[in-house]
């Protein structure tokens, strides 16, 4: 599955589950979620995103962020808020 990146050249790259997983874990840890719970939430969110990807052949990295935020909100609203804010803080 290729993901179209944001930015001017809009190049594409392979979807990397580990990358998404790490970013979700980081968001959870930032709101002081225990590491085990953060890992479990990240696994659940990654599975949901992968299931969604299977129905959508062409997506952008922003689509993935939106879908991941939506699923993360179910498990940890505060982490979802921070995850969503990452690109709009500065």
């Amino acid at each position, binding site marked *: 599955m290729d993901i179209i990146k944001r930015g001017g050249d809009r190049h594409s790259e392979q979807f990397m589950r580990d990358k998404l997983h790490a*970013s979700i*874990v*980081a*968001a959870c*840890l*930032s*709101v*002081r979620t225990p*590491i085990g719970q953060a890992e479990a939430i990240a696994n659940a969110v990654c599975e949901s995103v992968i299931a969604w990807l299977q129905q959508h052949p062409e997506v952008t990295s922003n689509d993935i962020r939106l879908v991941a935020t939506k699923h993360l909100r179910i498990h940890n609203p*505060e*982490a979802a*808020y*921070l995850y*969503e*804010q*990452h*690109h*709009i*803080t*500065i």
Partner: protein
Amino acid sequence: MDIPSSLAIISLAALIHASFQLSVSVLTLLSGHAIGSKHSHARLLRLTTGFVFGAGIMTVLLLSFISLVLLHIFGTNTPDVVWSMACGLLVGIAISVWTLYYRRNEKGTKLWIPRGVADYLTERTKSTKLSAEAFGLGLSSVTGEILFIIAPLIIAALVLIQLPPMWQLIGIGVYTIISMLSLIIVWALIGSGHSLGKIQKWRESNKYFLQFAAGSGLVVLGFFVFVVKVLGSTAGFN
């Protein structure tokens, strides 16, 4: 102008400087990356402390540099026209802050600074692993907001160069500490284990209030300095 009035102007200018948010945004992002990368609390503290020191040093350097330049050009008796220009700059930047400071109709706390600078700072927060890098990031974040902080810095510098040397040092110290209050508060909150989500949510909820306060502070400062220095001098009170 007497010393208490001079320090009052410097303090108000520093308070306005403190209400600008780029350094706080970068500190929030930097802490998020450090916590998310599973660094120890000690390392988080080292990085955030390095950042705060960097921001403080750059504030001291900018204020000292501007003071030195103004002192070389005008000496200790700054002409009224220069005070008037500085007051005009304050009001002009106040209008810019009211209308532009936060990007309109956008979520989050996106600021009206060149996108290249914002992207650079965002990328640097990700790559920052050492205290020295965090220190450099602190220096850069103050420079990145120069478009807005230049007005309070110039007014503080104009007041500083009229003070006796000992009071100039005290004035620089007062400006630096007050201008860093918001950064120090966020640093203390992060260091004491508060959630970044709550800090960012507070910042987002109150962003328009901070924008209004910063703009209004600039107008009040400009008006006060204009009355005291320009009108006071014209009327023969100085």
